[in-house]
């Protein structure tokens, strides 16, 4: 029992942030799973090492919530891949998530570096 609980905790910990990162990445246009993972890694300058395994559950979750759409398309290398795309609803959620995130970062920053203020 114990191991199972720990596992689920980890997903929950990542959930909010990872979801936001995915939405954010899709803002630039449709992308497939691998591309999303790559984009997160690259734009965070390799700091955020997304375990790819957790990417797919997150994608499915977002799709279920109606924040993103999926569509099978051909890649430039003529391979079939599932491309994800923001829905209007996803865009709205991303906007609120972003402002929430910003507020949180500011708040944390104020706590962490009170002197600079």
């Amino acid at each position: 029992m114990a191991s199972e609980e720990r596992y689920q905790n980890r997903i929950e910990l990542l959930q909010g942030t990872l979801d936001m990162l995915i939405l954010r990445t899709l803002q630039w246009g449709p992308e497939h799973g691998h591309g999303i993972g790559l984009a997160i890694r690259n734009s965070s300058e390799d700091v955020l090492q997304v375990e790819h395994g957790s990417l797919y559950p997150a994608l499915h979750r977002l799709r279920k919530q109606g924040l993103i759409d999926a569509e099978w398309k051909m890649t430039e290398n003529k391979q079939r891949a599932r491309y994800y795309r923001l829905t209007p609803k996803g865009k709205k959620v991303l906007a609120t998530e972003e402002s929430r995130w910003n507020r949180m970062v500011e708040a944390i920053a104020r706590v962490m570096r009170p002197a600079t203020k």
Partner: protein
Amino acid sequence: MRPWHWLFRRSQEERELDEELRFHLSEEAQLRIDRGESRESAWRSARQDFGNITSAQEVTRDMWGWTALERAAQDVRFAVRMLRKNVAFTAVALAALTLGIGATTAMFSVVYSVLLKPMTFPEPERVVMLWERQPSGRNNVVQTHNFLDWRQRNRSFLNIAAYLGVPANLSGDGDPVQVPGVRVTSGFFEILGAAPLFGRTIQAADDAVGAPPVAVLSAGLWQRRFGGRTDVLGQKIRVNGVPCEIIGVMPAGFEVPSLAADLYTPMQFDLANPGRGRNYRTVARLKPGVSTSAADADMQAIAAQLAQERPEDDYRWGVNIVPLLEQTVGDSRSTLLVLLGAVAFVLLIACANVANLLLMRGSARRREMTVRMALGAGRWRLLHQLIIESLLLSVSGGLMGFALAWWGVPVIVNSLPAGFPLPRSGEIAVDYRILGFTLFLSIACGVFFGIFPVWQMNRARMNDSLRQGGRGQTASSRGIRNALVVTEIGLAVLLVIGAGLMLRSFLLLHQTDPGFRLEHLLTFRMLLVPSKYPDAPRRAAVVEQMLDRIRALPLVSSASSIHVLPMTGGNSGTGYYRLDRPTPAIGAGTGGEISVISDRYFQTMGIPLLAGRDFDARDRLNAPAVAILNKSAARQMYPDENPVGKRMNVFWSGTPDVEIVGVVADIRHDGLNVEPSPTMFLPNAQRPNSFNSLVVRTKGDPAPVVAAVKEQMHQIDPDQGAFEIRTMEQLTAQSIARPKVQATLMGVFGLVALVLACVGIYAVVSYSVEQRTREMGIRLALGAAPLSILQMVLREGLFLAGGGILAGLLAAAGLTRYLSTLLYAVRPTDTLVYASVSATLAAAALAGCYFPARRATRVDPAVVLREE
């Protein structure tokens, strides 16, 4: 979305997820190859980066929502596979469950239909029966005066109706027959909420004295006598010689409370001369909003008034209110509940057995579980799997059990002898409500026996068992198994003791000497048509003429009559006192049962005359009134004197003072299980009764005599029928039918419990031997004698059996007192039963252990050691 959509979606989603993940890995690998890694290491690190692929798939699948269902389906498929792999295990478990759940379902359907289901008319809970309460507290039928006053003075009931069961002679077309009839006051049908099938029921106008005679038919009589023709309304039927107009037919299933009736006629009380005898049953319907207890208070106040107004009749008498359902169910309640309890214990034993089998298999499967776990199956998933397997077993067993009950209950109910004392037996049905119960029960069973393997798995340390090569048997699981077996044996002891007590009780009852000779004795129950025989001389004469003719028949050795036959569950009662002593105060008198008989009754029955003489030709209507006492009455009234020649006063409807002319031996008149009561006998020639059953002692087989006797009766009176013709042996068997069925059913349950408990101990001991084969082998190799191994195993088994028997005896000592109302002449702690049951169980347990113990001694040390 269409409900079946997920079936197609599932495989598609699955495929797409696979493809997506494959694509991801190949992209990732390509990326690394482009960076210059070798193909092999690129793929490896791509996989590493990804993490656990299976888990990603599972977590993703979890999010599809319907996977819980889909996973359950998968588990069920797997469970079916596992169950099919272990045919022997599955067959044993299913058989035990089918029997256990089937028997419980069957018993429950009876309990539900008889005790719980509301009766089939509107607002049955508002219908009660009103009884007069004897000074002793017992219920008594009601007097006309009291009924009329109750009806007039109460403020609690919409209406009260009186009714009286009287056989009705039907004649006219065809054979004269006597059918059970009932006379009712108006309002009777309304109180019971019963509408006629067609026509109308008895109204107030029909109930007035002098109103044209009318009759309502039961559905059964309508079918039998009139072939179900709808033109019967307005036709005349001769009831007791009087043509009555048929005004209505009641629907099938309409029942008169605590009576059987085929014909309903108006009561038509003769208000000018109501009589003081107590004869009537009454039903009443509570007014809306009036509770039973409020009605009770109301009636007690009325009874107190009446006791003051008419102390000669009502001093110390009162009223009892009994809800109709309670009245109908009567004393079958305790029987049914005891049997349901017994069958539930059988089911519990069956479940404990299955739990044990599962535990043993669980131990054997520990390796499988460990491997599956090591391969990444979630622990929760495995528990899920175990529970699904248990539920699959229990629900399959439950469905088969339901089928068994569905098929078996009607067969059993139909095979009950006519007149078997089970009320509402026509309503017993195994229907969807019972199916709900069965399913609930099955799931409860599945959870019950499924919980043990789960518990065991939770406690076992998985990696340990891998290391041990799966041979290990943890102490905890062994403890559970032993506890289960001890419980099983304990329950079996309890049940077999219950069965033993009932069996012993029944045998004692069966062997009880009724005080007269049962064989070759024919009885004809009849009622003399009151309109034809309105007065005493005519009633006395017709019985005498019939008896004269019957006695003359060649196959008849003796014949007589009595107004209430023995072994039919009751007798008339009255009060009497000695005339040579001061008149007792009102309510302080003595009394007992009373029988009106023709002469030679004692000779016909085979009852010894102890003193004085039998009634004879001297005892005519105008001769001095005489009476005979039985031994109990003689001892009650004349403890140290000879009663013959003494004079007594009797209350029995206007009987003059009587002189005692004889004393006879006691018989068990009311039933084999009822001690003889003090009884006074009056001669039919002097106090002729309308109820008069003939008793005929035949020289050989009674069957051929029936027609001849009927023929003689019809020659005297073509309208006269007999409504029940039975041999005394049949009547006696009928009177002990319930104890017999109780003992039989308990016996069956006890036997099943015994077998299950033996299987249980056998399985546990064999398993333990199997598990310890290696230990035995080493012991034998080190020089242990086979006998000592045998003893060791037997000791283990007997230890379990001893614990179970002890637990069972303690439980029995505590619980069997609930049986005491069902037992006759046997105490619930009967030592003989307890001792013999303990011995039987011990012997059975020993047999259960012996075979595995023998096997243990035959272990070949060489083979065992080589297996390492």
